[in-house]
């Protein structure tokens, strides 16, 4: 079956922000949001703004239905078995913290091994460091090779030591490396590990099937996939979630509360305490609809096309070093550095040309240390990225080189 081609010009019309003339090359940080998403949120605020799950009147019913509808959309989007496995969080960070707290505290014991990777985002490192310190557990990191890809030999070696938990990102936010997640999960499951996959950078950009992946947990954020900030997802296999205690405690996560004892709500609401980000969750549902209309295979194909174009254009620039694997094994992310020009100076000069470029450590300081750099510049792409934005980046780079010559 032929993969559809994205009509980028038509897509861009759904994103009013592009009328400002910016070249937006920071979608790995946060994506832009189409009118369909902001419109769904506005509709909630203007037509049925109310709290969910607890009121008897019609607009509250409407809010609850729309809020819960996102759960089914997300379930289908990542092919989970049940909506009970779809827990709303504020984003990937909260999802991972939820697991570290509610699963980790119960299951990680003294001397247990946790395996992470050197290309993980801080949000998939720091919660485990805190847990390991508390439980006196150990953490080992899978290293990368010279192309920025995980060392499978070392990964296999670490698995032989019987880790209790293996957690890694499907796609590196800093290098764009697409990890061989299916193989990694299967290998980790064979040695009996619980597996968490950080899907923050993969879910927006390629088809995801959590059941085919076989992981126990899968976390991602809405704001990197055309949705608003403040709404994200933790997928957890039902039996694993069932065995966990709550994360946050309070209203809405309970069945009955008596002064002597409380019984918790069923999945997934057991993990959703307090008034939720209702508008944001509704917005996330609209984002999933939007991506489904485009088709995730078409999204990936478009990004590969842009990434190949950018990879070539950037590789042609004198004094520019690109980090990470070739385009076929990377998502729409290119990290690079320039001889004699600090990434922040480049980003400032690019900004004067309305080119939005990320500069810094990308919340991956262990990786930056491993690469021997303090920071890199990073361009990242999405459904609305067009080649002329890449051309504008190359012009900004050349302008920076002229200024610093």
């Amino acid at each position, binding site marked *: 079956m032929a993969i559809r081609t994205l009509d980028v010009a038509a897509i861009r019309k759904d994103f009013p922000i592009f009328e400002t003339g910016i070249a937006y090359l920071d979608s790995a940080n946060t994506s832009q949001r189409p009118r369909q998403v902001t419109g769904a949120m506005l509709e909630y605020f203007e037509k049925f703004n109310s709290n969910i799950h607890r009121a008897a009147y019609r607009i509250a019913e409407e809010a609850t239905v729309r809020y819960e509808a996102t759960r089914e959309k997300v379930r289908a989007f990542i092919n989970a078995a049940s909506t009970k496995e779809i827990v709303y969080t504020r984003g990937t960070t909260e999802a991972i913290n939820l697991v570290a707290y509610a699963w980790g505290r119960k299951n990680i014991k003294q001397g247990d091994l946790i395996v992470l990777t050197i290309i993980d985002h801080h949000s998939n490192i720091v919660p485990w460091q805190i847990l390991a310190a508390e439980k006196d557990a150990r953490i080992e990191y899978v290293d990368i090779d010279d192309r920025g890809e995980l060392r499978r030999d070392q990964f296999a070696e670490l698995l032989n030591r019987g880790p209790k938990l293996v957690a890694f990102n499907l796609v590196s936010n800093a290098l764009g490396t697409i990890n061989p997640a299916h193989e990694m999960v299967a290998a980790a499951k064979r040695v009996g590990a619980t597996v968490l996959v950080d899907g923050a950078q993969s879910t927006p950009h390629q088809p995801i099937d959590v059941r085919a992946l076989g992981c126990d947990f899968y976390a991602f954020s809405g704001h990197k996939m055309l949705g608003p900030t403040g709404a994200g997802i933790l997928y957890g296999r039902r039996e694993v979630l069932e065995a966990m205690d709550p994360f946050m405690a309070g209203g809405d996560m309970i069945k009955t509360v008596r002064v002597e004892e409380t019984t918790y709500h069923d999945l997934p609401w057991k993990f959703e305490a307090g008034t939720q980000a209702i508008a944001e969750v509704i917005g996330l549902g609209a984002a999933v609809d939007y991506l489904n209309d485009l088709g995730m295979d078409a999204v990936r194909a478009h990004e590969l096309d842009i990434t190949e174009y950018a990879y070539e254009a950037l590789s042609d620039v004198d004094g520019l070093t690109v980090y990470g694997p070739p385009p076929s094994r990377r998502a729409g992310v290119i990290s690079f550095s320039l001889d004699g020009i600090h990434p922040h100076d480049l980003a400032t*000069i690019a900004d004067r040309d309305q080119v939005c470029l990320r500069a810094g450590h990308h919340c991956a300081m262990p990786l930056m240390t491993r690469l021997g750099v*303090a920071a890199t510049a990073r361009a990242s792409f999405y459904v609305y990225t067009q080649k002329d934005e890449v051309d504008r980046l190359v*012009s900004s780079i050349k302008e920076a080189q002229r200024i*610093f010559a």
Partner: protein
Amino acid sequence: MMATADDQFYREYIIDHYKHPRNYGRLEHPDISHEEDNPLCGDVVGMDFRVTDGVIEDVRFHGRGCAISQASASLLTERLKGMPLDEAKKINKDDVLGELGIDISPARIKCALLSLKVLKVGAYGLADIDEE
């Protein structure tokens, strides 16, 4: 379409101080030595001072990072040489930004003021030692 503001922001003397930093290096047996970093972008600035009779007789800086952080440090060392330490302590944010002579966006202000932080912490650190 290139904005001309680039050239105003990265004025020639800033690029010059970045590429040819003044008073760059280390002092042997400094009276004050202090280093600070900006973890967000990896900028590092350290300064060594020789202080005689309360006057900064010599100063060197070292570090790495963006043009703004390094040029700002270079400019600051030029000002500090021969200055009484008490006077150096009074140098403030506006003095440093004024010397840079450009509009610094909020995102880059930490870069511009990193060397001032080194001076402040270093200079006041010495004062503490004196009191002991």
